[in-house]
């Protein structure tokens, strides 16, 4: 089983990202489960969403404590919450950031990857310039660095599920897939 935790801030689309990622794996014949942090969410407050993927039916019904990979939608969360909590050795941390991977000194133990999803999203007019919706872009990058899911599956999930600007969202995913820095 693969377990993924997505960190974001309320309103950034972490929950939708978890659903889209689950759908992309579902398109490849996997069993999937995705869920938000159980609770009350406020715009701007740190939130998390989760995805489980397996080759057989998923029976476990608890929160995820030891994820295999982490996605961070907002770089300011790196200092605000312990995004690596429970992360398994060898797991990826994919961060939406303008910095280089080696600049995240405190994450040295892990495999860090960055993509400027905010810039990509803003250029495709997803959300606003100050509050870009980065969830679809970052999933493209996730497909590239982990190789766990095909970019075509991500694009198909985004195209079908995103209610507004599906074309632009797909383009953002594709661009992040191509520009992510490992």
């Amino acid at each position, binding site marked *: 089983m693969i377990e993924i935790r997505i960190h974001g801030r309320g309103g950034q689309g972490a929950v939708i990202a978890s659903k889209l990622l689950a759908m992309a794996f579902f398109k490849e014949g996997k069993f999937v489960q995705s*869920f938000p942090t159980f609770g009350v969410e406020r715009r701007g407050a740190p939130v998390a969403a989760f995805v489980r993927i397996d080759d057989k039916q998923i029976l476990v019904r608890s929160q995820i404590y030891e994820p295999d990979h982490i996605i961070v939608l907002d770089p300011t969360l790196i200092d605000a919450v312990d995004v690596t909590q429970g992360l398994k050795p060898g797991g990826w941390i994919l961060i939406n950031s303008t910095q280089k991977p080696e600049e995240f000194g405190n994450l040295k133990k892990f495999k860090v990857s960055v993509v400027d999803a905010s810039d990509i999203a803003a250029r495709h007019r997803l959300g606003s310039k100050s509050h870009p919706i980065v969830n679809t872009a970052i999933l493209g990058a996730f497909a590239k660095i982990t190789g766990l899911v095909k970019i075509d599956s991500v694009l198909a999930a985004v195209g079908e599920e995103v209610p507004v600007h599906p074309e632009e969202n797909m383009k953002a995913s594709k661009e992040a897939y191509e520009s992510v820095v490992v």
Partner: protein
Amino acid sequence: MKKVLMGNHAVSYGARLARVEVIAAYPITPQTQIVEELSELCANGELDAKFIKVESEHSAMASCMGSSAAGARAFTATSSQGLALMHELLHFASGSRLPIVLANVNRAMGPGWNIWTEQTDSLAQRDTGWLQFYCENNQEVLDTVIQSFKIAEQLALPVMMVLDAFILSHTYEIVDVPERELIDKFLPPYMPEFKMDVDDPHAFGALVTPDNYYEIRYKMQKSMEKAPQIVTQTGVEYGEIVGRSYDVLETYFCDDAELVLVAAGTLVSNSRAVVQEYRSKGIKLGLLKIRMFRPFPTEQVRKILLHIPKIAVIDRNISFGASGIFFQELKAALYGRDGVSEARIFGFIIGLGGRDVRLQDIAEIVDYALEEEKPKEDIIWMGLKR
């Protein structure tokens, strides 16, 4: 067609496939998405039903009763405090013999104010004359909504189907949504024996004196006693048409088990994973899933458990001053006129107010019950901060 659906929308899709005619509901976390989706389906014409917005859950049930009495297939959904507010009318709906279906998202009662999962809200309604089903996953959620209408309409009794807050309601997983034609074949339109009809006027809900009230109650109980057979038969029929069968309960590795776990809702899913793990180590562990809680499937439970040496009941609920509610019901079932079980029965309480239940918590329950000859306390509190 297979889709990735959250539990709440699995309820909505089930209600749509059942061709509900009236939906009357009031929003409450974590149920709101059920009626939000249904309201949208009504607005965009995908569902030909009347959506009645009401000012409270009490009014929601009143509207369901009125429309059901007039011959419509009626549906509502609620949770926790909302269900509690409906309490008076839950009695009224069953006493009126109206086959209303209600989806309840299991949420803890406040205060302390809490929106997370617990079974006490629905179990507290156990004496209202409603059938109750508890679901293990989102597939079962969708399938149970549809079956609930057929069961309710055959028995002329209302049905409450239950899903865990967040763990199902807000969790996306794969759900096979049946084709409309299959469900139309399974569930014909509702044809009530009696209904309010201006061309054929009758009085409904009149005063009943002690001369007759007693017999009316007897008849309700007789219908409840008929329920297990109807539920089994409906589950088989559903399987024949849709491809997934259901029953009042399900056994998992019970035949040679030295210890059987008893659970409902998503606790079953976690327990199933733990049974697999223990069986792979050669430990004779089994699981009994209680799908139908009301009427309690006493006979079926006795048949399965009478010769099991140890039983561990896992309750995510509490009847204050007594114990876990499934624990009580199970003990009552095993002390019957055709013999008494000599099993050691352990009563565990876990996960109240949405405290996360992990696989190792279930494993701890198993280890306790395997290790101890008998329970050290009447209630064994798991994961309690002392």
